[in-house]
């Protein structure tokens, strides 16, 4: 292949990937830019969407990516005039935070046991963990509901948080990651007289930091978006997390919904930008070993 041909090929690749990336980012860009439009402007662009069949024929939503005038009024509306938004935001925090912290603790401990300790039936038990990870939430819905009922947890976050902490995804990811840490490191520690506990705390845990970071991020994304558990386990609307609440307000107040979406996305996107290197390393390490 000549150099000119190679350059042309790289150019084609570059353009193709660029277009694809732009298409993939489009939903985020649309949400972000539209959140800076005034209620009036949003109303004009999207009036066709209004009430379904009542909308005039031949009128369609107009996509605009640049606000006529940058306005923070939607954000003001969400943050100051709609106390419900902050309430549901706080609900999401209360559901998500305990789950990711608990999952990280339980997952690192059990992941270490599966990756570095020897016990009978280890691989079979791990296979069972893997299977439950693949089951959709609905599989154990009835007994989980009955257990929550018996424990008096219905309508309480405990009914969602407790199973969340023990979800096998955390164990799976940590086991995958820790399997990639060479055994030689632990052997060296054993010769020094350090027990497993110290080897775990001082050798494996520091080396597994990218894995833990990836777990926290993935679990955060997953739980920040929970839909099934709250709609089935939480009867009261005021206790619903933001994920469910936002989907409900999208219909009526479109402009507000754009701003609310942006605020809702912000923690996840910041965490992503901040921890992307860890996330990538964590995903990569967990995927190489079978």
């Amino acid at each position, binding site marked *: 292949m000549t150099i000119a041909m190679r350059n042309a090929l790289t150019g084609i690749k570059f353009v193709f990937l660029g277009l694809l990336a732009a298409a993939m980012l489009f939903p985020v860009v649309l949400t972000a830019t539209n959140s800076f439009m005034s209620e009036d402007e949003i109303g004009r662009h999207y009036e066709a969407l209004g009430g379904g069949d009542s909308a005039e024929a031949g*009128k369609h*939503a*107009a*996509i605009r990516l640049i606000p006529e005038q940058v306005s923070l009024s939607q954000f003001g509306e969400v943050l100051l005039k709609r106390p419900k938004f902050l309430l549901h935001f706080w609900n999401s925090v209360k559901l998500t935070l305990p789950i990711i912290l608990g999952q990280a603790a339980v997952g690192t401990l059990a992941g270490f046991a599966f990756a570095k300790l020897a016990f009978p039936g280890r691989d079979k038990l791990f296979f069972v963990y893997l299977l439950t990870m693949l089951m959709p939430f609905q599989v154990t819905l009835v007994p989980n509901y009955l*257990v929550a009922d018996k424990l008096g947890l219905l309508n309480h976050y405990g009914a969602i948080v407790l199973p969340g902490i023990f979800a096998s995804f955390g164990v799976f990811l940590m086991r995958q990651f820790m399997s990639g840490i060479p055994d030689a490191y632990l052997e060296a520690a054993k010769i020094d007289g350090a027990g497993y506990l110290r080897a775990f705390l001082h050798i494996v845990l520091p080396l597994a930091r990218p894995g833990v970071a990836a777990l926290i991020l993935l679990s955060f994304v997953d739980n920040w978006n929970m839909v099934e558990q709250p709609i089935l386990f939480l009867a009261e609307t005021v206790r619903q997390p933001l994920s469910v609440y936002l989907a409900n307000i999208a219909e009526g107040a479109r402009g507000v919904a754009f701003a609310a979406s942006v605020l809702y996305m912000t923690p996840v996107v910041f965490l992503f930008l901040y921890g992307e290197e860890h996330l990538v390393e964590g995903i990569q390490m967990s*995927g*190489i070993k079978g």
Partner: protein
Amino acid sequence: MRRHRQYRRDAPFVLLFLAPSLAGFLLFFIIPFGAVAYYSIIDNPVNGNLVGFDNYRALWASGSFRKAFVNSLMFAGVSVPLLFAVSLGLAMLLKGALPFRQTFRSMFLLPMVVPVASIILVWQTLLQWNGAVNGLFLKWGVEPVDWMNTGWALAVMLLVFLWKNAGYNLIVFLAGLANIPAEQYESASIDGAGAIRKFRHITVPGLAPTSFFVIVMSIVSSFKVFRETYLVAGPYPYDTIYTLQHFMNNMFQALDYPKLTAAAVLLAIVIGATVYVLFAAERRSRRALEQ
């Protein structure tokens, strides 16, 4: 014998490290699953009379179950291979030197963290009957499409699935590709192998363990599209995107526990069998690789 000694030495530590997880795992997953299996062969949780396979027969007789079951299998069967191909293709494109390679990677990964509810908003804006896409179609003289109430609904769902999950698999594949020793490609080039032969004989076998992980994670994600479809189309969406999760949610709301638990057991068996086959295939390819 050495193994037994290690078991004995490790035993207290196994307890210490595994106990918290195992306790919760038993309480919230294994015991409930046992209960599901039991509920699936009794008439109802209150009476508790054994009815054998009656619930399964009733389930199979239900048209909405058969529809949901077939739809779910179809969706997983189409979406997982499609996602596999798309993300592997992306990884091959991003493998070599390329300007802004890291930026591309970040951009492809970002959809993974975009919250469901935000997607709903964009989805409506674009794809409602009066949405922007139909507006464009009209302008171009193309017949507008009722996206969520025709066969297109499935295509839309597939697109959302690919959009959301391609980045994750891309990262895994990039790692897998980087793990294949460059010398293998070099010596193949010296032997005169072309790009296609190199792909078939070096890349494909070298990616076997990675592929296993990618497929498992993709199956998990293929069940998670339920969130998006549920929030967009509610509990009774268009026929082709009515999945097992819709069915099970609706059975739960209707308090039809016999059908729900029987469906849960069936689904668990299908997933278990699939993963078992994947595991066996992975082990075989690994052994072939080591020889």
